[in-house]
């Protein structure tokens, strides 16, 4: 047992500490588990499962389970469904876990799955994650522990899509109504809902009957602390054992403090600077390649991201994403080659350009944009950084005019489909057009054959690597601060905290 006594605290603190030791000795035998305190940037705005933000899903999946779960690296694994198979390209059969109960003791059955999916897919529903499973045609209950899902087209991302869909208790929602379910959600998850104060706290108690084993803590208290430096202070002061979303400039403050540490994990967000390829000079692939070569990505990565996350390997996908092409390498800085390419394209004297970015949307976004602009100067390209507010940015998206270069991070949640779609014409977000890319995208989306899909995405990454529709920057990290007394928790790549194994060691 460690107790720090600083010189200035004097005798009184010593006496208090001594009596605290006595009390601690007394209570140690009684209290095993503790409440885990977590400081989050923002609590969800509602406990409605129809809200699709990461923050909302993080809360929902504490009290509820999905058919398919993800682990901390983003890989899918069996959840409420023990196993599944594609019966034919349009039909999936899910074998549900036996012996799972909701928090009120009612057994979980196939009816709950059908109820949830039907609710989400109803034509008038505005369920946020609806599009993740949008190609489901119908759900049929085969028996108490088997469901069959039929899709309108071959739907390879059904499995990963289902990992974002918490299964709701049919009997409860039907009995108390939707409003009451939102006010006091119930599911099969590791924690039981206790209370929620909007903008302040979300309190849970452990579910001793959780099918993956009872949580090791008594409960979890999520507190909303929007300001990052306050969040860091709450960790250092020992009020919270986990905090999320630590900005780069605060990392040193935490690392210098005792009993706490910082861990970063690569998310599936690939940060890009996308070219507007419709207009000169970026209609010329040589110019795009030259600017890609002008940027010293490892340097920016070390300085502005403190080496957290990863440098993208010459493609938009992060290495933890299905479809990532391991044969591609990051495009290294080569100023001479870049200058030669620009000269070849007729821009030996450079040109003026600008980078559009939001501030605070991604980790160190403005700093990264400024650093890139500075590096462009080495090849005579004079870039300004245009910082716009989210509202303005969304207007630019609608007008399809983001400026010559804009910073954007596309998340894949583990499957290339979700990220690569943004470079297809139908997405309304792409400027670059490539017929083969479009064909491969459609092909990969319409088969459930994993090998075929992987080959298609690998080839798409190759095409992008050659055509450079964007400067491939970084796989962005999620940075967490943790108390050293905490074990059994790993920073997740998808912002969903898995806490049922978390344990707080006695002081």
């Amino acid at each position, binding site marked *: 047992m460690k107790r720090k006594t600083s010189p200035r605290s004097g005798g009184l603190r010593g006496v208090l500490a001594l009596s605290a030791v006595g009390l601690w000795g007394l209570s140690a035998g009684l209290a095993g588990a503790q409440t885990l305190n977590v400081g989050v940037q923002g609590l969800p*705005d509602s406990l409605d499962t129809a809200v699709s933000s990461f923050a909302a899903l993080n809360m929902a999946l504490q009290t509820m389970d999905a058919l398919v779960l993800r682990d901390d690296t983003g890989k899918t694994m069996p959840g409420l469904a023990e196993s599944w198979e594609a019966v034919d390209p349009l039909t999936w059969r899910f074998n549900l876990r036996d012996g799972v109960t909701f928090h009120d003791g009612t057994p979980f059955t196939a009816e709950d799955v059908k109820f949830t999916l039907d609710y989400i897919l109803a034509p008038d529903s505005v369920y946020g994650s609806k599009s993740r499973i949008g190609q489901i045609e119908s759900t049929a209950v085969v028996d108490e522990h088997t469901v069959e899902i039929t899709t309108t087209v071959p739907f390879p991302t059904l499995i990963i899509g289902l990992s974002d869909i918490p299964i709701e208790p049919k009997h409860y929602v039907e009995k108390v109504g939707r409003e009451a379910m939102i006010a006091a959600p119930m599911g099969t998850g590791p924690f039981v809902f206790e209370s929620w104060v909007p903008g302040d706290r979300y309190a849970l108690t452990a579910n001793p009957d959780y099918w993956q084993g009872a949580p090791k803590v008594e409960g979890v208290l999520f507190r909303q602390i929007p*300001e990052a430096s306050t969040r860091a202070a709450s960790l250092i002061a020992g009020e919270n054992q986990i905090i999320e979303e630590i900005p780069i400039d605060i990392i040193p403050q935490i690392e210098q403090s005792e009993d706490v540490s910082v861990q970063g994990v690569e998310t599936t967000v690939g940060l890009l600077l996308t070219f507007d390829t419709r207009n000169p000079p970026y209609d010329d692939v040589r110019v795009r390649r030259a600017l890609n070569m002008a940027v010293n990505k490892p340097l920016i990565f070390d300085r502005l991201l403190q080496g957290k996350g990863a440098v993208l390997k010459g493609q938009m996908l992060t290495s933890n994403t299905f479809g990532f092409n391991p044969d591609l390498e990051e495009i290294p800085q080569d100023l001479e080659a870049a200058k030669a390419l620009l000269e070849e394209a007729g821009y030996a004297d450079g040109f003026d350009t600008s980078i559009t970015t939001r501030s605070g949307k991604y980790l160190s976004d403005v700093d990264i944009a400024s650093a890139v602009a500075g590096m462009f100067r080495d090849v005579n390209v004079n870039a300004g950084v245009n910082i716009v507010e989210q*509202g303005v940015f*969304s207007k630019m998206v609608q007008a399809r005019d983001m400026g010559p270069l804009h910073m954007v991070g596309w998340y894949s949640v583990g499957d290339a489909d979700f990220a690569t779609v943004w470079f297809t014409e139908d997405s309304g977000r792409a400027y670059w057009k490539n017929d083969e890319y479009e064909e491969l995208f459609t092909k990969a989306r319409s088969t459930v054959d994993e090998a075929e899909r992987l080959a298609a995405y690998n080839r798409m990454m190759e095409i992008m690597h050659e055509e450079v529709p964007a400067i491939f920057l970084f796989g962005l990290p999620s940075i967490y601060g943790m108390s050293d007394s905490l074990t059994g928790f790993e920073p997740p790549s998808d912002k969903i905290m898995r806490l049922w194994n978390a344990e707080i060691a006695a002081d």
Partner: protein
Amino acid sequence: MFAFIVRRLLTIPITILLVVFVTFIVLRVTGDPVQIYLDINATPEQTALLRERLHLDEPLIVQFGLFLWDVLRGDFGMSLQFATPALPVVLGRLGATIQLVSVALLFAFVFGVAGGIVAALRKDRLPDFLLSALAVAGQSMPSFWLGILLIQTFALDLKWLPTSGTGSWQHLILPAVTLATFLLPNFILITRTTVLETRSELFLTTARSKGASESSIMFRHLLPNAINPVLSFLGLQMGRLVGGSIITETIFAWPGIGSLMIRSIFQRDVPVVIAAVFIVSIAIVLANLLVDILQSLIDPRMRLD
């Protein structure tokens, strides 16, 4: 007096209508709520559905008309982020803000007036220099910086108080001090000046020549005359106080209207922002009315009717 209050109450709706109109227009022209609210993978049908539900397909002025009609019935619309009616969301946060602001105000007022009197009575002596220096220093400290400094000192180094959040009276101290520091310097300086001015007034000489005690002079003659400028200043500062509470609440994770407002602005949650602005405007107008009433009670010269 009564007529005055009624007259003032009648101008409230006009003030508030103006504030609501400006807020509505600014939020609608600077960003599309649908873009922000829906998942990036939203289908065009989803977008169209929401657009229709929010009347976003109508001309701006029609949107405002429809909106105003709803507001008159107490319906600010559904919050886009909370998916519940906006007004209860705001009212639910009102308590926390009132708690914070009133403690901060009390703190600033008591210490400001007391400090100002001490500085005036000890003019050009050490207490005056100290207090004036403190006031200038306090005035030049941005609240976000002061807030973080206080957390560092009292929560991390001394471990006397929690860093942030709610739960006990200890949680209230740091945010209240931060918000109070926003106003305290002005209270000190204004009180000091008015006390000094009042002290040279002839009626004090008269009181003294009557043989009134120093404490009676202080509390019956000097203070009532010196306090009015402080009160009118307070009325003028209510708006700034709300601005200050946005920053303070964000730093200290205080779940009040300020932190709700800033978040809702970023989310383009127009119903919540307008409901919050509506409630805050009413509060500011009422606070000013209260100041006017207090002033006319203290100083008969200020009775307006």
